[in-house]
């Protein structure tokens, strides 16, 4: 192979070399090239669609005097929001969805803590790797597949739970919560696991060395240290449950979540669907603000 001698002090050089040299001298240009694409995408796709949602939610339909034709009023008004607040069923569904999101989060946390602790602190390396794969494996399966699998589990007449244990929560709110807790579990296990993995063993040893037994060590040393990981996991489980509507259809029986209402109203009354869809957005903003004020986001 022929070798080319490059004189680094030579100001000419190939085109690529010159481009690199220009980039080296202009940090802002470098940054623009690095982030230009993703930022455009974020602005158009994320912010753009959110703005469209908010704008739409301020429109409303008005019947003409005959009552036969609905007319779209594009003058901004809070009519839709007023209806969300004033109507009992919409409030109930919103609180039910929040309750389900909290329940799913708590269930996932209670399952994730011991599993993640075992993975991070006790298991041998190969067991740990196997468990990471096993925990994340359900994410590879399709969402619908898992939904219908849980339908087969929960069916009160001849489902797996009924056959094995003689009882089943059946199709309804609890069945939906169980199914969603199953679906979102990896999103809690993985952050808690990585939080525990970062926690030095010497802190646990220091705690026992100073006389504390397992319970106190867990509450006073482990929990405060992995709180950011728990908050991160809970943001996933909470937000994913809040936004879900299809599991409620598959295993929820007549149970309605926020998403089901949005889905139903979407074709009939788009401005109202948009207004109702801002509810989970607002809840998530409140949730994130609470997490932030607790200081848990600073260490993420």
């Amino acid at each position, binding site marked *: 192979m022929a070798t080319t001698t490059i004189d680094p002090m030579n100001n000419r050089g190939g085109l690529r070399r010159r481009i690199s040299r220009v980039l080296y001298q202009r940090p802002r240009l470098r940054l623009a090239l690095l982030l230009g694409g993703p930022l455009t995408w974020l602005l158009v796709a994320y912010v753009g669609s959110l703005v469209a949602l908010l704008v739409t939610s301020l429109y409303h339909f008005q019947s003409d005097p005959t009552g036969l034709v609905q007319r779209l009023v594009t003058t901004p008004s809070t009519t839709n929001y007023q209806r969300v607040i004033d109507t009992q069923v919409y409030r109930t569904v919103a609180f039910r969805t929040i309750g389900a999101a909290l329940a799913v989060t708590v269930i996932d946390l209670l399952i994730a803590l011991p599993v993640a602790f075992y993975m991070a602190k006790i298991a041998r390396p190969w067991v740990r790797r196997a468990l990471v794969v096993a925990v994340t494996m359900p994410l590879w399966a399709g969402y619908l597949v898992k939904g219908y699998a849980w339908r087969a589990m929960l069916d009160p007449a001849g489902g797996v739970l009924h056959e094995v244990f003689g009882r089943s929560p059946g199709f309804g709110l609890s069945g939906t919560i169980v199914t969603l807790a199953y679906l979102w579990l990896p999103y809690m296990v993985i952050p808690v696991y990585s939080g525990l993995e970062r926690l030095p063993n010497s802190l646990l*040893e*220091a705690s*026992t060395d*100073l*006389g*504390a037994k397992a319970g106190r060590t867990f509450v006073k040393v482990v929990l405060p240290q992995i709180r950011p990981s728990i908050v991160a996991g809970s943001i996933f489980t909470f937000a994913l449950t809040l936004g879900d509507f299809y599991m409620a259809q598959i295993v929820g029986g007549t149970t309605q979540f926020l998403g089901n209402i949005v889905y139903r109203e979407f074709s009939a009354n788009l401005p109202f669907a948009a207004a109702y869809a801002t509810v989970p957005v607002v809840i998530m903003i409140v949730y994130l603000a609470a997490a932030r004020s607790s200081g848990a986001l600073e260490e993420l």
Partner: protein
Amino acid sequence: MPEPALVDDVSPGSPNRLPNGVAVSLRGVTKRFGVVTVVDGVNLDIAEGEFFSMLGPSGSGKTTMLRMIAGFELPSEGSVLLKGRDVTRLPPFDRDVNTVFQDYALFPHMSVAQNVAYALRVRRVPKPERTRRVDEALATVRLDDFGSRRPHQLSGGQRQRVALARALVNRPAVLLLDEPLGALDLKLREEMQVELKGIQQDVGITFIFVTHDQQEALTMSDRIAVFAEGRVEQVGTPVEIYERPTTEFVAGFVGTSNVLSPDLARALVGRDETSTIRPEHIRIVAPGREPTSEEMHTAATVRDVQYLGAFVRVRTETAGGARMVVDVPTASDTLAEIVAGTQCTLAWRAESVRAIGDTKSTNTEGAT
């Protein structure tokens, strides 16, 4: 706690016989991880109030030994006695022993005072007494005004002191220190050595100090156990360990030694057994001068000259093929004559040569 029955631990005439009571007694302690034996039948008695160092290279089993005394590891065989009481299978929280960890292991979410108070809270010590003892412990390590700081706001040396205060606040029977000065820079380490020794004398608690730094062990300890490959090579005072190493390993690991095989020893110093001589006990005779009549001497070739500040380390090779390391003080007037490749005369006094009941021959240099 009921008074533990004292086991008759040391047979009369044993070299380990201790004047004070025995704080820690290790009986045939062995630790295996799978097929690897990390600690291999260690027997040691450590006296009350003693500053005892376990010195050895990494992988020699000294830290594992410490962890078995603390209760973090269970021995595969043997027993650990604390003030005569068998604690081999007791969990760490039931042992009257505290540890200063290599990484300090301070709780990052607690203030300095909360860290120090941790053990007292666990024992439900009432608040006024707790505050008093925390203040006392922080005063002992000269951190009186640091109670409200967080660990991340402290320097390495200050964290080290907090770890010490936290481990001492309970007044344990024995304090275990796992390479506590390893992360500090040289200057600070030397200051902490003096301070640590002072604190140990003030509180009168038995310190068991793990280190790979022979200088540190020599400076601070009342006695040293030198570890190699899971076994104790030699136990003794710093002077005994340095002046009269009983194995070739100790001679090489603690300081620098010229170890002479029996053949070389016969030729050079007139002894039939493996012998050692410290580099500082050999001098290079200035050209044109003669060794004194009490000195033994030999001709050698200078191979390499290394400037080390206070002294110059000269590597030489004698006509008989023995490699001899000689330390020449920087102030010495013969220094200018010592150049690699030239001939010189090495001289030493007969009493500087120590015999080792061992056979192999190498020139070994320990960490300095």
